[in-house]
């Protein structure tokens, strides 16, 4: 069902529309989540991915099921981009037994190892060493798989980032570190958290090659990940992508946003929005009519996912007790 794209190389209507649809799915999914959260059907910690869709979709489009992705607390977009499993994600958010983690994990802990999705993470920077481990396992087993670690600029100030980059370079492991610099670590702006936000410089300190990417342009992301993949799959060691983007939503849930209106306005313009951006790059391949059609399709799929989740049973306490309580 999922179309492998390499959109820059093919540039076909089918490829562009498929990429657009996957970004749109994430956008509308997150909007539904916000709505359901307000309505009390989804609870807990919810970190929305709106505005960053081009990174998840651009990166995951280039990967195989056998490649690994390690996500973050803001991971719905990564999960959908890697697995396409809208129903499993929605059911997980509603705490149902049919959720992708059987209702045991929730928003920050979606898993689908069979499709290479190795989990979100509630600890900032906590997933980077795990991704290093999957890269190690790929090399150990002699497979051609790569391991992708998504993290934010906030996590780049954790020791795990530096330790993992050093180790990956030392052992020449197939790790692709994808920094999503969305300019905020919770409420702390990048200027207040990061002495130099140029991640390529940090990578250079560990002999790791890097590219700086416009994270709101899926074609730019796509080109970069393909370069990273040829480097890493050739056994040349890790690679870092420094994707510049912006977290359009507040840090968590539906808390009030204290960021300046002028700043928010800039990132909400069509020029910045990854969806509009892709359409404007391919007006002939992606007409308004086609976009409207995709909207309908996505909304129908999301309706089905919400229905599926609502009708799904909650996990059984007896079964949980049997399996997990010692």
């Amino acid at each position: 069902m999922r179309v492998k794209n390499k959109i820059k190389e093919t540039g076909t209507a089918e490829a562009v529309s498929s990429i657009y649809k996957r970004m749109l799915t994430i956008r509308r999914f997150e909007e539904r989540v916000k709505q359901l959260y307000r309505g009390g059907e989804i609870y807990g910690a919810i970190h929305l991915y709106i505005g960053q869709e081009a990174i998840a979709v651009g990166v995951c489009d280039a990967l195989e099921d056998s490649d690994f992705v390690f996500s973050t607390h803001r991971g719905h977009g990564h999960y959908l981009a890697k697995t396409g499993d809208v129903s499993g994600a929605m059911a997980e958010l509603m705490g149902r037994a049919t959720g992708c983690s059987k209702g045991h994990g929730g928003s920050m802990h979606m898993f689908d190892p069979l499709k290479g999705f190795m989990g979100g993470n509630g600890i900032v920077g906590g997933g980077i060493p795990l991704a290093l481990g999957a890269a190690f396992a790929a090399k150990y087993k002699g497979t051609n798989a790569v391991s992708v670690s998504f993290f934010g600029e906030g996590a780049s100030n954790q020791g795990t980032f530096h330790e993992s980059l050093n180790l990956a370079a030392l052992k020449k492991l197939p790790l692709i570190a994808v920094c999503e610099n969305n300019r905020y670590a919770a409420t702390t702006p990048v200027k207040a958290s990061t002495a130099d936000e140029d991640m390529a410089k940090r990578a250079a300190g560990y002999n790791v090659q890097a590219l700086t990417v416009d994270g709101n342009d899926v074609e730019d992301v796509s080109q970069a990940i393909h370069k990273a993949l040829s480097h890493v799959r050739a056994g040349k060691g890790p690679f870092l992508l420094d994707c510049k983007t912006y977290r359009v939503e507040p840090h968590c849930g539906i808390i009030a946003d204290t960021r300046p209106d002028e700043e928010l306005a800039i990132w909400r313009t069509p020029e910045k929005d990854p969806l509009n951006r892709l359409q404007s790059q391919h007006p002939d391949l992606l007409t308004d009519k086609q976009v409207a059609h995709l909207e309908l399709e996505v909304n129908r799929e999301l309706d089905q996912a919400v229905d599926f989740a609502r009708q799904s049973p909650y996990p059984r306490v007896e079964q949980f007790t049997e399996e997990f309580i010692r």
Partner: protein
Amino acid sequence: MKSMTYIEAMNEALAEEMERDPSVFIIGEDVDVDGGVWKETQGLAERFGLERVIGTPISESAFTGLAAGAAMCGLRPVLEFMYMDFVDVAMDQLCNQIAKLPLMSGGKVKMPITIRMCGTGTGTREAAQHSQSLEAWFAHIPGFKVVMPATAKDAKGLLKSAIRDDSPVVFIENRNIYYKKELVPEGEFTVPIGEAEVVQAGSDVTVVTVGYSRSKVIAAIEKIGDACSVELIDAKTVDPLDMKTFLDSLAKTGRILIVQEAHTECGIGSEIVRRVVAEGFDLLDCPPVVIGSKNCPTPFSPVLEDAVIPSINEIMGKIMLLKQYKI
């Protein structure tokens, strides 16, 4: 039986398991060409190659996470901390990642990791950052099993069981007995996780030992001689606790002492007492007693260190106190 040290017994266990299962690999500081600072992995890199015996930089968080990620992908890492104290810098990877991912994934990922805490112990004047027994931390976090072998035989048998277990097992060693020759069975054997051992039968007082304290209690029992009939039980596994063995013994003696090297407060001894009270209150003839290190970081000077860690005299005193307790 053959004579070998605790270190040699573990080395043999590693070699046998690596031979048996190609998914087993070793990772830690200095474990490769030099065979580790304790010589615990000597010869393994030569035998199994540097692909399976991975020396690392001093980056405990990263290499712990590496082991975890590799385990999620089907490998069976044996992860090594040079001293148990060094685990503190990797606690997120251990407690938030390794212990929790199997549950958070709804059982979709497994964490078959053996986490070796090398060089644990007191009494060798290594000061406060090289003297901690932190078993209670890991027993407190759901998701781990915790074992503390006190003999060469158990070191080998429990290490093999730990490596084969699909759960993360915290394997706590003791440096005071690393190089002492003991008798170990020849050929293939394992020691089951979760089973205590009645080392010596007795009828007056039950003494449960945690890890290395077994040696001190044996010395105390020898000094006491016929004055008290002690039933000595080596807990071996501190999570899950083998309560049945403890309670069966308590049914005979009515008196119980627990001895640990760790600080007494909130330790495994406290947990054993809690469960003894909850599950065997009627068996008790007197209050249970716990001996552990005093409530301060371990000081360096021999005079001070000896004053804060459990001593043979203190153990003898408490055993006799329990025996003489009037109902």
